[in-house]
Structures are given as structure tokens and as C-alpha cells.
């Protein structure tokens, strides 16, 4: 009987482990494309957490489901179950295992975080580990384009990017692929959040503070930057495109953008507000007026909702 119980438990645990492993692997597919070096690290940690989490969830669920299906009292059975008040060994085991598990998860998360090193030298305190595995594929080489940080200016409700070295301003963030990007985040009014889902990175932009923020794009393409910290009426409209391109294309873009005369960029919040005001006010309540759209060399195409 005892051996049979152990065998059944082992079989169930193996089946659950297999299912959990499969769910953990499919977790990679629940995320946006891996467009930064950081995203690979984050997804690896997430997949691990999904695997462990699925195992625990299924363990509890299967046990409860079995009890609900097979351990119901009969209609006229008014007797009690066995008087079991506890089991010290079992209680020690199920305290020790979760404790070990969360320590493991915490240490693993810590290592992943240390490898990411997304906060710049002003903020980040290195804790004695090999840092920024996600970083600089070609940092320090003559090929690097990221000598001067790109300034990110957030205001209600527009993103503006300035490339001080090249005298370029833009409402579309262009970044060279496979190079460490260094940004200087600034806000002119309220707290905003700099969030690029495809890069798995996020940082609040705080008025009166300059925050250095680093990451490494690795996949060419166009991605969405969103405001992630609620910033008022047109919060949802505060998006911008991020273009990751080859080093050559990036430099070409900088050169051609620098030659363009500055124009007033399209801004969804400002346009919306202007149209509503022309129609004689909104159906809602009075709002903080959107900031004037920025004057930039390059404004890309207005964000389309295709």
C-alpha cells in the first residue's frame, strides 16, 4: 500500500513536471518579440517562474479537484472525517521547501537583474558581480555611436528625443542595433514612464531629476514606446515609435535629419484637444491643456492605428 502510494505520487508529480516544463517553454511566446539583450534575460527568468508556478498551481488544483470529485460526504452521512490536527514533519517540510524555493528565485532574479544593469552609473550600485552581460557588444570600440546620451523629454502628452552631438531632434526614437543605448530621461511636468515592451524595460521619468538609463537593442525593426506612469487626461495617447536600425542606417538617418529644417510635429493629444475645443468643448470635464507639439527635425509618420 505504502509503495503504491509513493508510486502514484511520483507518477503524478512527473506528469505535472512535464506539463509545467511545457507551459514554461511556451511562456516565451506570450511576450513581444525579443528586441533587446535585456529581453532575453527577462524572458528566461519569466519562463523559469512560469514553470515553477505552474507546478505549484497544478499541484494544489489537482489535489483539490480530486477531493471535490471523490471525497464528498454521502447524502445521509453526517459523520465527521478523521480528527487530524496536524503533522509536524509535514509542516516543517512545507515551510522549508517554499523558503528554499523563494530564496532560489530571489537569488536568480538578483543575478538576472545584475546582468541587465539598466540604470546608469548615477543610480546603479554594483554589488560585486560581473555586470551587464546584456551590454555592450561593441562598447568602447571606435564603432560606437553612443558617446553622448540621447535626451528623452517627456511632457503632457508627447515624447521628444534630442541627439545633442548631432543637433537632431525627433519625435521618433532611432537607435543603432547591437550597441548600448544610453538615455537621459527628463520630464517637464508630471511623472511619466518610459516603457518599450519589446525591450522589457521601463523607468519612471521624474520631474526635476535626470535619470541615466541604459539598454541594448539587438533586433532591427519598429517598436512602440508607451507612457507607463499615469500622466493625466491624454495618458493613453502618449506613445512614440522606436526604430532600431543598423549602425550605418542610423548614422545616415542622423545626417539627413540634421539637414532638415525643424517642423511642428503631429501630436495626437494636441490635435484631439484642438478639435474638441473648436467644436465648443468636450462632453467631459475641464482638462490640463496638452503642451504645444515640439519643433523637430524629424517627426516620422503620425502613429497610425492600422
Amino acid at each position, binding site marked *: 500500500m505504502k509503495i503504491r502510494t509513493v508510486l502514484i505520487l511520483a507518477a503524478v508529480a512527473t506528469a505535472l513536471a512535464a506539463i509545467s516544463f511545457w507551459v514554461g517553454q511556451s511562456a516565451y511566446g*506570450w511576450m513581444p518579440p525579443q528586441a533587446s539583450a535585456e529581453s532575453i*534575460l*527577462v524572458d528566461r527568468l519569466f519562463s523559469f*517562474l512560469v514553470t515553477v*508556478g505552474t507546478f*505549484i498551481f497544478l499541484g*494544489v*488544483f489537482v*489535489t*483539490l479537484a480530486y*477531493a*471535490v470529485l471523490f*471525497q*464528498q*460526504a454521502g447524502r445521509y452521512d453526517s*459523520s*465527521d472525517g*478523521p*480528527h*487530524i*490536527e*496536524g*503533522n509536524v514533519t509535514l*509542516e516543517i517540510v*512545507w*515551510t522549508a521547501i*517554499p523558503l528554499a524555493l523563494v530564496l532560489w*528565485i*530571489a537569488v536568480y532574479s538578483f543575478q*538576472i*537583474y545584475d546582468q541587465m544593469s539598466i*540604470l546608469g552609473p548615477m*543610480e*546603479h*550600485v554594483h*554589488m560585486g558581480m560581473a555586470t551587464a552581460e546584456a551590454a555592450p557588444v561593441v562598447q568602447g570600440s571606435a564603432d560606437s555611436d553612443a558617446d553622448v546620451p540621447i535626451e528623452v523629454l517627456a511632457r503632457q502628452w508627447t515624447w521628444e528625443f534630442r541627439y545633442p552631438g548631432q543637433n537632431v531632434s525627433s519625435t521618433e526614437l532611432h537607435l543603432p542595433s547591437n550597441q548600448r543605448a544610453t538615455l537621459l530621461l527628463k520630464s517637464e511636468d*508630471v*511623472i511619466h514612464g518610459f516603457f518599450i*515592451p*519589446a525591450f522589457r524595460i*521601463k*523607468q519612471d521619468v*521624474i520631474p526635476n*531629476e535626470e*535619470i541615466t538609463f541604459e539598454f541594448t537593442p539587438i533586433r532591427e525593426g519598429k517598436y*512602440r514606446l508607451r507612457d*507607463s*506612469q*499615469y500622466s*493625466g*487626461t491624454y*495618458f*493613453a495617447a502618449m*506613445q512614440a515609435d522606436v526604430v532600431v536600425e543598423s549602425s550605418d542606417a542610423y548614422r545616415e538617418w542622423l545626417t539627413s535629419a540634421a539637414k532638415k529644417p525643424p517642423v511642428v510635429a503631429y501630436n495626437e493629444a494636441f490635435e484631439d484637444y484642438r478639435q474638441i475645443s473648436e467644436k465648443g468643448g468636450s*462632453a*467631459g*470635464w*475641464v*482638462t490640463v491643456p496638452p503642451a504645444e507639439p515640439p519643433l523637430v527635425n524629424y517627426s516620422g509618420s503620425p502613429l497610425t*492605428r492600422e
Partner: protein
Amino acid sequence: MTNVLVDETSNNLNQPGEPESWRRFFSFSTDHKVIGIQYIVTAFFFFLVGGIFAMVIRGELITPEADLVDRTVYNAMFTLHGTVMLFLWTFPVLSGLANYLVPLMIGARDMAFPRLNAVAFWMVPIFGVVLMGSFLAPGGPSQAGWWAYPPVSLQNPSGALINGQFLWLLAVALSGVSSIMGAVNIVTTIVRMRAPGMTFFKMPIFVWAVMSAQIIQLFGLPALTAGAVMLLFDLSLGTSFFDPLKGGDPILFQHFFWFYSHPAVYVIILPIFGIFSELFPVYARKPLFGYKVVAISSLIIVGLSAVVWVHHMFASGTPGWMRMLFMFSTMLIAVPTGIKVFAWVATIWGGKLRLTSAMLFALGGLIMFVFAGITGIMLAAVPVDIHVNNTYFVVGHFHYVIYGATVMGVYAALYHWFPKMTGRMYNEGLGKLHFVLTFIGANLNFFPMHPLGLEGMPRRVASYDPEFAFWNVIASLGAFLLGISTLPFILNMVGSWIQGEKAPNNPWRAIGIEWLVSSPPSHENFEVLPVVVASPYGYGKSDPLVSNADDLEVAHEHH
């Protein structure tokens, strides 16, 4: 003056029949049972109000464009949805359950400070009216989210002195004062008014959990209330605690806010743990597994809850060392919580289960809580949190906690103690229909939020990119189903209270002092205070819980 009041009240108490009038529910009653029901019914009214706000939110989000309501209206909706659901539904309904049950469970005739109790309750409708009144303020209600982070909360586009944000802060401060009063009362009652023989380790776990939760209120609420008052000064009097344009520090407010508002999650969930711990033994006919460890783990959760708040601020410019510290402390909470989950599973395992409506809600709540716990660990891991922070993943996580575990747990408690509170049995068929609709609705509504968050949809948006439409439609349909699910519940509660079958003292054959007296209990609860001689949850044994069970009933009020 005070003496006169005391005399009048005690005269009223001595008139047989008088406290049984239905009018007592609309009066300044000092009976903890009346106040408990007042809390529960008032809170449920606001639950429906907050639910209507949620319907507007999900109606807006069923399409990508901001097309149903104006953006300012949408922002007011999610601000008030969060505020109402927390301050006017969750906290009051749990106060109501604690008020009703704690004195009965510990064998006391009332709370330690009956009049303070009534004052604390009557502040709820008052700040509820203040908050709802903000719809009439110039510029409309607050649109800063329920966190009210400055500088957004300080912008006040209407320019009026009495604006929506002002009224919001006033309501939150009043709510804080009311909750502090309640906390002082409940903790004092539990410490000082236990019946003879009711040692701490003979208290039911619900009492342990409520005591732990209220201790959190005592150390945490002053921080939030102070933060709210400082923000009010910034908004109305021109001080600059938090306004960066005048040299203030907006992050400081976030610390004040989360120093309370994270522990507040445990104020909410601990009583639900208590409800689970009461219900599973009754409906599985087994003692609670590992009673002492479950009791102590509540206190461990209280201690840890005080040192985790920064995990809400991982993306707020928090330095790396602080991120790591708070990641460790946050993950540690999984240990005492895990102990409880395993204890409940072990309680249920091998028992003789009865799937009443109460038991179904408790089981459904437990499963959804386990899911929420797992996503909670993911959120504690800083690298994952950096990605999903402020996205729908977080919204999904805490709705599994607040709806999945908490609302389901509250429903379980209401069904379980309905016969005790009203003297009537509820209708099981309607109860089970309610469970099915709620369980399906909640999962349809809140599960899709997780993939949405992982894909990068921020919370609080009125419009979103079309790639997010699929899961949003499902979530909205789930939300409408949840709206409908309240109908069989209301029908059941109202109908059964009016014409339900009369309830005996102990319809569930449960072990507990509250089940030894009539349903509903008489005004003074006990003729003679019970003398407790056994531990709670003595299922499978036939030891008496109290030595004087036959003397408890108040003689002149037999039903």
C-alpha cells in the same frame, strides 16, 4: 451629558423586543450585530456603485478607440472604481463581518467601545456621500487614479478651491479616521473581552486574522492619512511637500502612500484567510490542519507586510540596492502564505466534503488566490516587474486577489453566516447559480489581463493599439457576466431574509460559540458568558467546546 446618554441607552437595552425592531438598522445602534449588518449592507450598495463604474470602464475598453466616454470621464471612472471598491466596499464589508462575528466568536456581549463602533460606521456613509458629491464639483471627480500620485493630483485644471481631488482627499482622510477607530475597537475587544477560558490559542483563526489585520491598520494608516493631509495642503494651501516645481519631492508621497497601501492588501486578505480557515473545517468535517502554525503565520505576515512597500516603486527611480532588498522581503511573504494554503489543502484532503454555496465560494476563492500568489511572486522578481509594472498584468494579479480571493471569500462568509445573521436559510439553488456565474465571470474578466500586460498594454489607458483588442473583448464580456452574477445573489439574500425557511441555531453542525446561541442571537448575545474548555475545530471528536452550553441563551428573548 455622557452619563445621561449611557442611562438612556441601557434603558433601551432593557426593554424586551425593542432592539428587534427593523428600525434599528437605520438608527445609531450600538449593538455590534446591527452595526455589522449596517456595514455589510452599506458596503454592498457601494460595491454595486463601483461595479457600475467598472461596467463603464469595460464598455470603453471593448473597442481600441476612446469612443464611449470622454477621456476625462474615463479617468474619473477608474479613479473612483478603485477608490470605491477599496474604501467603500472591501474595508467596510470586512469591518462588518469582523464586527458581527468577533464578539460572538470570543464570547463577548459587545465590542469594547460600542459607541465608538457606531461612530466609525456612520462615517462610512458620510465619506461615501462626500466622494459621490465630487461628481458635482467643478472639474468633476478626481482623475488622478486611486494612488493620487503628485504632480498629476496637484494639477487641478478647474482652478476651483473645492474640486474633485479636494473632496477625494477629504473622503480618504475620513475613511482613515474611521478605520483607525474600528481598529482600536477590534484589537481592544479581542485582547480584553475574551470569555473565560478563551486563551489566545483557543481563539478561532478568523479572530486571529482580524486581530492581525487590525494591527496593520494601527501602524500603517497614520502614514497614509498624513500623506493625504499633506497632499491636501499642497493642493489647497500652496505648501510644497510633493510639488517638484516648488522643490517638493513627489516620490516621498509614493512612500507615504505605499507604506500603508501595500500592508492594506493584508488588511484585506488576512480576514479572508480567516474565513477560509473557518469554513473548510466545517464543510470537510475535519479540524483545521496545523492550527497554531496558521495562527502564528498571520502575525508573521503582519511583520513582513511592513517592510515590502517599495515593490510598488521598482520603476520609480528606486536605486538598485533598494530594489533587491525589497524583492527579498516581498518574496519571503510567500512562506507564511504558502503554509496557510497547504494547511487548507490538508484540511480538505480526506474529509467528508459538503459543497454548499459557501464551500463552493471558499474553494473557488482558494484556487484564484493560489493563482494570484504565483503571479505575485513573478511581480516580486524585479526584472519581470520592470517589464509588467503598471501594465494590465498587475491589474489582473490584484483582481485575482481582490475579486477572486476576497470577494469570493466574502460571499462564502455571507452564505455561511447568513442563517446566523438573519435567522433564515438561503436558497442553495440560487447560491450555486451565483457561484457558477461569478467563477466563470471573474476568470473571463481577469485572466485576459495577464497576456495583455505581458504584451505591454499599460493600465489606466482609455484607448489602446488594436493588437490588444482580442483579450479586451473577452475581459469586457467577463465583466458584464460578473455584473449579472450579482442579481441571483441579491434575489437570494432579500428573498430568503423575507421568507426563507427558519434557521436553527446551528444549521451546518459547526463548532464555534456563535453556533451555540439562537439565530439570530439575542441583543446581549449571552445570558451567561461561555466558559471555553476546548480548542476550536474539534471535528471528529465529541468534546464540548464550552462547559455551560445550556446556560448561554438569553432567557427572555427566546424565539
